[in-house]
C-alpha cells in the first residue's frame, strides 16, 4: 500500500553538490590548452576562434594579470570563475551556455585561484578597474586571482545592447572552454553542500532557527540586468532556489554600470552569504533555502515582489533572513520594502548593503530607511577617496579612467596616479559582503 509518510521521508533530501576545486597557480599561453601541475596553459588561437564566432566582435586580445604585478585592468565588465559539470543534471550556466535544466546536484569542478575577466568600452562612461598590486589591490578580491583578460572590440556601428550581449557571452564561453580542461582531473579539495527538503529540514534541526538568504538581483534595464537560468530577472517573480544552484552558474551578471554596486558572476558562483550559511548549517542555524527577488524600476513591481518575498518567508516558517541588495538608489527602496514586509511576518532580518555616505562619511548612507531596519552589515562607504599609484602596465584602456564611476576629469593625474572614490574599483564595496571591507 502507498505509505505517504514513508514516501515523504524517502524523498526528503533533495540536492547534494560536491564542489571539487582545481587549484590554478599560474596561467601561461601555449600551443595546447591544458591544466598541468596547477598551471593553466591556454592556446589563444583556439579561444580567439571561439570568441569570434560572435559576429558582433571584431577582435579580441588576451592578456594575463597575476597577483602582485604592477598591472591595472580597466574597464572591467565581468569576472567569471571557470567551472565544469562532471556529473548530475544540466551543465554550467544553464539556459545560457548549458542546456535548460535544473542544476545544483552531482559533481562540479571549479578552477580556483583564477578568473576570466572581460574588458571593453561598451559605453563612453565606464565602470571599474582591478589593480593587481598597490593600495587598490587591497580593495578588490580579484587582485588575488590569476586573471585571463579578454579585451573585446566590437564591429563598427554596433548598438550598446548588442555589444553588452557579445562581451557577456564571450566571457561565459571562454570560462566554459577553460572549465572543460579540468574534466578528467582530480580535485585538489572537495567540499560537499547538502540541502534538506521541507520535511527533513523541519524535523532534523528542531532547536535551530530556520534561516533563508534573500538575494535581491539587479534588474532595471540595459547594463543593469541579471539572468536566472537565462531568464531576465526583471521578468521573474520571487522564487526559491537551492543555494547550490548558484554554484553551477544559475545566476549570471549582466550588470556593468558601476563597479561597486554589482555582483560579478564570480560573486554569484562563490556567494559568501551562501558559503557562511552552509558553514553554520546544523550548528547554529538551519539553512532552509535561497530566495531570489528583483529590483525593477516600476514601483508596482517593487510592491509585488516584496509582497511575494515576505509571503515566501512566511510559508517557509522562517525565523530569520539575511537580505542583500544590489545597486544604488532605486534598490534601496526594494531593500527597505523587503525588510519591512518580512519583519511584519515575524521574521527577523539582517540586511547587507554598502553605503554612499559622502566623501566625509557624514551623509545619509542609503536613499531609503525605516525604523525596523535595525540590523545592518555594511560593506563600506563607496564615496571614500583613495589615491592609486601609476602601474607599469595597463590592460584595456587607461584613457577611460576619467570616465569611470567615482572619478572626475582630474582623477588621472599627469604623473599617472589616480585620485578617486573607491567605487572606481571592481568589487570594492560588494553588497553581498564579498571581500573584507566593512565599517563599525
Amino acid at each position, binding site marked *: 500500500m502507498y505509505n505517504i509518510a514513508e514516501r515523504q521521508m524517502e524523498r526528503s533530501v533533495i540536492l547534494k553538490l560536491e564542489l571539487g576545486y582545481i587549484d590554478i597557480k599560474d596561467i601561461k599561453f601555449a600551443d595546447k590548452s591544458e591544466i598541468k601541475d596547477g598551471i593553466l596553459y591556454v592556446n589563444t588561437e583556439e579561444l580567439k576562434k571561439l570568441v569570434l564566432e560572435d559576429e558582433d566582435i571584431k577582435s579580441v586580445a588576451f592578456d594575463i594579470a597575476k597577483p602582485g604585478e604592477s598591472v591595472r585592468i580597466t574597464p572591467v565588465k565581468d569576472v567569471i570563475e571557470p567551472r565544469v559539470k562532471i556529473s548530475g543534471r544540466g551543465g554550467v550556466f544553464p539556459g545560457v551556455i548549458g542546456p535548460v535544466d535544473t542544476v545544483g546536484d552531482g559533481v562540479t569542478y571549479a578552477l580556483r585561484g583564477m578568473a576570466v575577466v572581460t574588458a571593453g568600452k561598451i*559605453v*563612453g*562612461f565606464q565602470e571599474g578597474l582591478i589593480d593587481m598590486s598597490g593600495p587598490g589591490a587591497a580593495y578588490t578580491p580579484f587582485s588575488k586571482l590569476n586573471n585571463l583578460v579578454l579585451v573585446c572590440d566590437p564591429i563598427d556601428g554596433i548598438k*550598446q*545592447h548588442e555589444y553588452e550581449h557579445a562581451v557577456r557571452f564571450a566571457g561565459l564561453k571562454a570560462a566554459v572552454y577553460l572549465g572543460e580542461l579540468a574534466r578528467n582531473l582530480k580535485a585538489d579539495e572537495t567540499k560537499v553542500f547538502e540541502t534538506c527538503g521541507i520535511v527533513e529540514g523541519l524535523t532534523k534541526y528542531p532547536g535551530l532557527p530556520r534561516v533563508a538568504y534573500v538575494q535581491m538581483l*539587479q534588474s*532595471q*534595464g*540595459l*547594463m*543593469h540586468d541579471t539572468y536566472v537560468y537565462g531568464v531576465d530577472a*526583471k521578468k521573474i517573480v520571487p522564487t526559491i532556489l537551492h543555494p547550490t544552484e548558484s554554484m553551477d552558474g544559475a545566476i549570471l551578471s549582466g*550588470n556593468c*554600470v*558601476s563597479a561597486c*554596486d*554589482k555582483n560579478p558572476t564570480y560573486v554569484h558562483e562563490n556567494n559568501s552569504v551562501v558559503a557562511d550559511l552552509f558553514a553554520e548549517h546544523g550548528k547554529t542555524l538551519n539553512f532552509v533555502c535561497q530566495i531570489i527577488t528583483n529590483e*525593477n*524600476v*516600476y*514601483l*508596482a*513591481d*517593487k510592491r509585488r515582489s516584496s509582497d511575494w518575498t515576505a509571503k515566501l518567508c512566511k510559508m517557509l516558517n522562517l525565523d530569520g533572513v539575511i537580505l542583500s541588495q544590489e*545597486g*544604488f*538608489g*532605486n534598490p*534601496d*527602496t526594494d531593500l527597505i520594502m523587503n525588510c519591512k514586509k518580512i519583519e511584519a511576518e515575524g521574521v527577523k532580518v539582517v540586511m547587507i548593503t554598502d553605503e*554612499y555616505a*559622502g*566623501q566625509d562619511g557624514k*551623509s*545619509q548612507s542609503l*536613499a*531609503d530607511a525605516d525604523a525596523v531596519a535595525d540590523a545592518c552589515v555594511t560593506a563600506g562607504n563607496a564615496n571614500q577617496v583613495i589615491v592609486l599609484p601609476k602601474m607599469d602596465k595597463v590592460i584595456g584602456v587607461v584613457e577611460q579612467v*576619467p*570616465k569611470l*564611476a567615482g572619478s*572626475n*576629469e582630474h582623477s588621472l593625474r599627469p604623473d599617472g596616479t589616480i585620485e578617486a572614490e573607491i567605487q572606481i574599483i571592481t568589487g570594492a564595496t560588494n553588497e553581498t559582503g564579498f571581500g573584507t571591507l566593512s565599517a563599525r
Partner: protein
Amino acid sequence: MIITNNPLVKANLPEETKIVYMKCSYKDILIKVRDLCYAGFLLKTHPLSGSVKPNETPYKSIMVSDASTGKTDFDSCELISNAISTYEKFAKLPDKWPKEVLLDFQVVDLSLMQNALKSIDL
C-alpha cells in the same frame, strides 16, 4: 506620464505615451516631480532608477500618474524627497562628457523607461 530631460525618451517612446519634455537639469526634473507629487500625482517609477550616479548622468526620466488624485500621497512625496537629498550629497562635477557619451547616458535612461513601460503593458 513621463517627466524627462532626455531627448531620446521624447523621440523613441510610443506615440500614446504622454511625455513632458523639459530642457533642464537632472535636479530640475526631481524638483518638477516633487511639485507634482505635492499636487496629488502618484510616483510610478523610482526617481533614482539606474546605478549611474546623479552627478554623472545629466539625464533623468521619471514616470508619474497621468492625473492628480487630488490628495497628496505620502509615499510618493517621501521617495522623491529622499531622491533629492541623495542628489545633494554627491560631489558636484563639471560637465565632462563629449557628445557620444551623452548619447550613451540617454540610451541607458531610455532603456530604464522602456522596461518600466513593459511592466505596464501586460
